[in-house]
């Protein structure tokens, strides 16, 4: 083997070891029998994985994160699909301004969004923490929803809507009969991307927490500050496998990466 043919496997090994190694260590640590988070794991047991399901705060914050990820993504899609449709199909003055406003939450640091919402929406208008979190997550997912749905709309010829109209369909009927079925994949991809983004999101939720109201990642950080046992590793592994599984299935059946 000469130097160049060694270059490719060596580079790949080192880069992937750096990127994925830490995750594997977390997975290994979650099967530890020891009391603290450590690697190599001391012995083998499933006790920490079992413990994850018994921690009350995890259950509550998991439910909260699920609600935000599912509900926020759904709301972002309800707002984002019509907007993407208008941006892709209509000659609209100020389209660029709309695009910018809608995509700003990606650029502005999440911690600022969270603080601004807390100070100028939650406090003055007496909005509860849960609705505030919902609004924040919806705003955060909206840019992704618009981007992914726009991409799949741009891949779809607009003359099929005209064809449907000429065959007797109304404009809205044409949207539901011939556009929606053809951007299903894009919408589902947007849903998955939004879900994962929301579920893993911390900075936005940081200031938006109250007694008993916390998202799962924020709760995990709080738990680790008190107890440094492998249950957070176990929980992280479970969540990671869950999201990898969803994304893998999406790629397999939908060609997820076409849209993202």
């Amino acid at each position, binding site marked *: 083997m000469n130097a160049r043919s060694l270059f490719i496997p060596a580079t790949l090994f080192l880069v992937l070891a750096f990127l994925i190694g830490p995750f594997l260590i977390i997975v290994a640590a979650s099967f530890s029998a020891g009391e603290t988070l450590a690697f190599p794991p001391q012995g083998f047991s499933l006790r920490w994985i079992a413990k994850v399901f018994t921690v009350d705060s995890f259950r509550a914050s998991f439910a909260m994160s699920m609600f935000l990820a599912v509900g926020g993504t759904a709301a972002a899609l309800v707002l984002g699909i019509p907007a993407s449709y208008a941006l892709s199909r209509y*000659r609209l003055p100020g389209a660029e301004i709309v695009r910018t406003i809608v995509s700003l939450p990606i650029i502005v640091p999440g911690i600022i969004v969270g603080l601004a919402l807390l100070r100028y929406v939650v406090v003055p208008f007496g909005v509860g923490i849960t609705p505030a979190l919902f609004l924040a997550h919806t705003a955060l997912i909206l840019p992704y929803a618009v981007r992914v749905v726009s991409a799949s709309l741009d891949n779809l*010829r607009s*003359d*099929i809507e*005209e*064809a*449907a*109209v*000429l*065959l*007797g*369909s*109304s404009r809205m*009927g044409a949207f539901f*009969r*011939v556009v929606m*079925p*053809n951007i299903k994949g894009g919408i589902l991809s947007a849903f998955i991307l939004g879900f994962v983004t929301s579920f893993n999101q911390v900075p936005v939720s940081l200031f938006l927490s109250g007694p008993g109201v916390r998202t799962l990642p924020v709760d995990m950080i709080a738990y680790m500050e008190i107890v440094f046992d492998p249950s957070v590793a176990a929980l992280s592994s479970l969540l990671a496998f869950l999201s990898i599984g969803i994304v893998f299935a999406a790629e397999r059946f939908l060609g997820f990466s076409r849209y993202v």
Partner: protein
Amino acid sequence: MSDAYLSLEKLTLAYGDTVAVGNLDLDIGKGELIALLGPSGCGKTTTMRAIAGLLPVKSGHIRLDGTDMTRTPPNKRAVGLVFQSYALFPHLSVYENVAFGLKLKGMRGSELDQKVRGGLTSVGLSSFADRKPAELSGGQQQRVALARSMVMEPKVLLLDEPLSNLDARLRLEMRTELQRVQKETGVTMIFVTHDQTEALSLADRIVVMKNGAIEQIGTPEDIYNRPASAFVADFVGFENIFALDQGKLKTEHGLADPSGALPGEALSAAGLAWRPRMVTLGSGPFRGTVRGTSFAGDRREYLLASDLGPIKAEVDASEPVHAPDAEIAFDLPAAKAAPLKRFA
């Protein structure tokens, strides 16, 4: 024409503030096969989209079968359109594509089935009913699109560049198909094309358009042999075109006498035009130098540089060959020339 089936009256169409078609008048009889011919940007597609109702009319009227449908929404017009890209619904099978409009009309059950199967059979695709559009060739997709429009029994069928995406063999097949459908159903057909051979071979009448206005309306013979303007002449292959000034040809080097007496109808013409085939080589009052030559099977084409300007000639390949740079005599016989009513 007061008995027009479809008439466009002072039709003005615009995209935003840009006027694409201005003050257009056109009458079309029932069962006619009309070609809208012109280069891209001439307004032919815009006009077609307005007839379909896909583009709002700025001013003027569109009347079809006795009713004004200028403001009728496209889904209530009974106008069919076969898109250039076919615009088949990718998620539906061939059968469902054809059934789409019928179902919206409320047709169900055996009546629907009969109608759809009949439509597919008429375009020779009955065995493809369960396929998805992506599994068909371009020609087959176009026939599905045709069947999808025809089962709706439209009053007018519009076709956007119906032959341009097909290869030479399929083109002939489709041309025959369209003529047959038109003959069997008697539907009024309007198709848009930038290809003169397509228009000449298919249409009953050709409407040549330029810059959002009609340049000439006529039968294929009219358009081909008697172009009304320099633009039409150039578009249908007259490559040697001259303006006339007091009975003389206007050239880059001043006025030149035409060869022979002008025919009566040419006396008032604004210009004269010759196809390359109408140029005589080897004799005549003009002289030119051979600048280029190319062999085209049974014919040979020459490009000459002359006092009249560049001249394109085309002669039988059996005639004597003229070498490059040779100086030869040629003739533009006035008797053969097509007189042009307008030059600009």
